[in-house]
Every structure is written in structure tokens, then in C-alpha cells.
């Protein structure tokens, strides 16, 4: 092959490479646009977001929208109240579902027993039951148990609905721990509890992180149950319901609505950017295989 031909080929490849990367950049920008627009609007004074020619960036950035949200102009309670509700419900249900799921995952990955396959299939089906159907029965049950307008009821529901996915994901992580390690420890005289604490738990820890992220996202974002159970008690609202209420009651004050939405969304997105590498592995291992 002549030098010229090889140069031409290399140039062709470079051009194609640049074209593909340009396309990638375009896809990224389009995908990012709604998030960008939310944040940008949140910093705009009313004269700017209510303008007939939209500008990408605020000309006179203001914190007024955020102040309105944090001071609580709509419900009369500061934003922190709802953040606290959301974090409480989310963290407790994440811990509960991770612990319960770990026990189940050990059973499903380490033991052969009757009903094992039945249980796995049951989990797949449970995961698909429509929440807007079950919410009717749960609403009536919770009302007779005095669990409406209570964050405790929500925690129970979030734990239950996170379980199928977390069990499926954790099962793969437990199965990936070499059984020989546990057997060697058992032969050395370690009891089952010791094997669990010293061998299994440290090795499954990355899996627990991945599943916790899933349970976290589910509970932090959950809408139907919170909407239905917390209907009248605005002080108990979690953030998704708060943002929706804010949007419903605030007419068209888009600056404040976007500020509320930013305060709700951006912390999660920042968290995701930090853990995303591990998460993507878990996403594929757990969700597609499950």
C-alpha cells in the first residue's frame, strides 16, 4: 500500500470519528437541555422567564425564586420540612429493604430448596403489579389502621415495592462470591454468623451499594402512594408531592416552580454523577438479567 493511500484512509477514519463524536455531543446536549432549562429558569426574574423571546441564560440572575421556595410561600412551611420528610422516608425504607433483601438473596443464591423457582417468579410478577391498582386497597387498609397522613405507612409500602428488584439484583451479587471461601472458613470452625460477617458481607458490600441506590431512587421519586396517602396533611408531604402541589397551586409562576423542581432534582443528579459507574454495572446486572 502506498503512503498516500494509507494517509487518505487515516484521514477518512479521522473525519468519520469526528462526525460520530459530533453526533454524540449533539445527543448529549439535547438530552441535557430540559435539565439546563429548569436550572436556568429558576434563576430568572419573572420579567425574563415571562418573555416572548426566551434567552438561554438569565441576564439578571436572581435568587428570588429559591427564596420563595425555601421560605415556603405556598404551603407556609419551609422547603427543609419537605426535604426532611423525603429523606426520612427514603433512608429508612432503603435500609429496611436492603437488609430484608440480603437475607432473601442469600437463601436464593446459596440454597436449593422447594419453591425456590416459584419464589423468583413470584418476585418478577409482583414487580409488575400496577401501583395505581393496589393503591385503592392500601388506601382503605391504611385508613382503618390510622396510617394515612403518616410517613410510617409510606415506609412500609416503599420497602415492599423495592424488594423484588433489590432481591433479584443482590442474588446475582451473592452468587458471584466464591462458595469455596465460605466453605474454607466453615472448615476452619467459623459458624454461619461469622462466615456471614467476615466473608459474605464485605464481598457483597458493592452490591448493597448498587441496590441501595435503586431503592433510594424509587422511594425518593415515588408519586402515587404519597399523593394518595398524604392527601390532606400538607406538613407531611414528601418532595415529589410538594413539587406537584407547588406546580398545581402556583398558577404559572414558572420561576418558582422550576426553583422547587431544581431543589428537588439537582441533589439526586449530583449524587448520581458520583456513583454512576458502579450503578451502571448494577443496572445491567440486575435489571436486564432480572
Amino acid at each position, binding site marked *: 500500500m502506498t503512503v498516500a493511500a494509507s494517509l487518505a484512509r487515516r484521514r477518512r477514519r479521522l473525519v468519520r470519528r469526528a462526525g460520530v463524536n459530533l453526533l454524540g455531543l449533539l445527543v448529549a446536549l439535547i438530552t441535557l437541555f430540559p435539565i439546563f432549562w429548569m436550572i436556568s429558569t429558576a434563576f430568572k426574574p419573572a420579567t425574563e422567564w415571562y418573555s416572548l423571546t426566551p434567552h438561554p441564560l438569565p441576564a439578571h440572575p436572581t435568587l428570588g425564586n429559591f427564596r420563595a421556595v425555601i421560605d415556603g410561600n405556598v404551603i407556609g412551611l419551609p422547603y427543609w420540612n419537605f426535604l426532611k420528610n423525603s429523606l426520612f422516608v427514603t433512608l429508612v425504607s432503603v435500609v429496611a429493604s436492603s437488609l430484608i433483601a440480603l437475607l432473601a438473596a442469600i437463601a436464593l443464591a446459596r440454597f436449593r430448596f422447594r419453591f425456590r423457582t416459584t419464589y423468583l417468579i413470584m418476585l418478577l410478577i409482583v414487580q409488575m403489579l400496577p401501583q395505581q391498582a393496589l393503591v385503592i386497597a392500601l388506601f382503605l387498609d391504611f385508613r382503618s389502621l390510622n396510617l394515612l397522613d403518616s410517613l410510617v405507612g409510606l415506609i412500609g409500602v416503599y420497602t415492599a415495592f423495592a424488594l423484588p428488584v433489590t432481591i433479584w439484583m443482590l442474588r446475582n451479587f451473592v452468587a458471584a462470591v466464591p462458595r469455596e471461601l465460605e466453605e474454607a472458613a466453615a472448615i476452619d470452625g467459623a459458624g454461619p454468623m461469622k462466615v456471614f460477617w467476615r466473608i459474605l458481607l464485605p464481598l457483597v458490600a458493592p452490591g448493597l451499594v448498587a441496590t441501595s441506590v435503586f431503592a433510594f431512587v424509587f422511594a425518593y421519586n415515588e408519586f402515587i402512594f404519597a399523593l394518595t396517602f398524604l392527601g390532606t396533611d400538607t406538613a407531611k408531604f414528601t418532595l415529589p408531592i410538594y413539587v406537584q402541589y407547588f406546580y398545581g397551586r402556583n398558577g404559572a409562576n414558572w420561576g418558582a416552580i422550576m426553583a422547587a423542581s431544581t431543589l428537588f432534582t439537582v441533589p439526586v443528579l449530583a449524587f448520581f454523577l458520583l456513583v454512576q459507574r458502579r450503578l451502571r454495572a448494577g*443496572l445491567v446486572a440486575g435489571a436486564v438479567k432480572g
Partner: protein
Amino acid sequence: LRRRAALFARRHRLAPYLLLLPSAAVIAALVLWPTIQISELSFQNYGLQQEIGAAPAQWVGFGNYSHVLHDPEFWLSLRISVLSAAAMVPLTLVVGTLVGLLLSRLGRRMAAFVSSVSVLAWATPAVSASVIFVWLATPDGGIVDWLLSRLPSWLGGGAHWAAFSWTNSALPAYTLATAVVVWLGFPFVAVSVLAGLRTIPVELFESARVDGGGPWTIFWRVTYPLLRPIFQVLFLLSVIWDFGVFTQVFIVIGELGQRDEYNLGIYEYATAFTLPPAYGVASALAFILTIILLIITVGYVRASVKEGALQ
């Protein structure tokens, strides 16, 4: 040693059941029991009278079901659910697959950038995404109408787009809801397809290219057959999610205001939770919705079994 192992196994024969007990109890109490209750309620006339204790709940046989089947609003909502899923599922899958294929061709850094951005879209709460898209498409001050009214007419633009309301009737509202669903849903498809592509040996693509196959041929002759199990699972999951989509539609149509924009799930929810409540009829609707989704789920379970996920 073997005897010790056998002893261990015998002593721990109950262990798996004990380990499963907590999860089984929670799921039974908060998922399975409500499902049974729904099916029971769907045969009773449980409504406002029964709620305030003015009259006892009575069994009405298939009364609620025949009421539903003669209800034009049910058929409208069912049609909306079917048609919107028919738009949402293929769009999500096609966009996701294209982005997945693109990701596999990008340089390392650009791929990392694009997939980080996609994860951001995926991680955005459905409530936020819906509110943002409603804002983007709002008639006064929204950027979508502004853009469309400035597009040349051969691209479908024009002055009639200025102050066009996207939420006042079903077709535009579901176009907007579809945009939200696709934006939230394509990253999952893209990342799954990308993970599948990584399992295909590069030589297969190279030899296909040497044989003169274009990208279209290579996708349908090499990529798709090899990734068929992944596509099958993604398809079924998308159908289940999009047929039952609630939050996005609830926010886009502006809560429960416009009855002619309800899909099946919203119609069922509104029947139960707007006054006067009709829990019995709503349970019949919920049961119908559940059965439809369970039928699709059977396909999903079979695809998962075939893929060897139960091993």
C-alpha cells in the same frame, strides 16, 4: 468432611425458609393481600354510602364489570392507553437503541460524557421531568411554541404555533407525555443495548463489514439476532411500564381535570379518589388493568426463563 457438610445441610434445612420469611411477609402483607382485596372489592358495591356507614357493602356479582364494559369512558381510556403505549414503546426502544449503538462507536471520553448525561435524564424524578416538559411547552413563555412558530413552514412551523396549548386536548397532551416518557426511558435501553454489544466479539462485525454489509444489514443480520433476548426483555418491560404510565400523564393533563384525557390507570384512580368515591367500580377497573399487565408479564417471565435468569 463430607459427613460434616451433610450434617450442616441437614441442620440448616430450614435456613432458606427462615431467610425468606421477612421478605415474604412484607410482600404478602403489602402487595399480595391488597391484590386479593381488589379482586374482592370489584364484586362489591363499595362507594360513598358504604364508606360513611349508611349502608353495608353488598356483593353485586359481576355488576361492576358490566357497568365498566358499558361505560364509554372506559373504552376511551383503554384506547388512549393502547395508542399511547403504541407510540411510547417503539420510540423509546428506537431512540435508546440508536443511542446505544452510537455509544459503542464513540471515543472513550465522549462515550463517558454521553452516558453520564443519559444517566442524568434517567435519574430525573418523573415529577420533575413532567413539570419541566409542561413548562417547555407552555403556551405563554414556553420555548417549544416559540421555536415552532419560528420554524419555516416546510418544516411544519408557522405562526399558528404561537400560544398553542399542548395540554387542552388528548393528542397534543399525549405527544407531550410521550416526549417525557421517551426522555426518561431511553437511557435504560441505551445502556442495556451497549452492555449487550460489549458481549459480541468485534471480529463478527469486522467480518460482516468485509463481506460488504452496510450498517443497516449488519444491525439486522448480526446485532439484532445476537441481542434478541435483551430486546425481548426491554420490549416487554417498556410495554408494561408505558401501558401503566401514571405520574407523567397525571401531571401533563393537569391532575384529574379533563376526563377525555384519562388513560386506563388515571381513569381507575379518578373513579376511586374523586367524589363520590366508587371503590367497587374502581377495583373492577384496577383488576382489569392488572390482568392486562399480568398477561404481558407472563411473556416477560418466559423471556427471562429462556434467558436463564432463574438459574
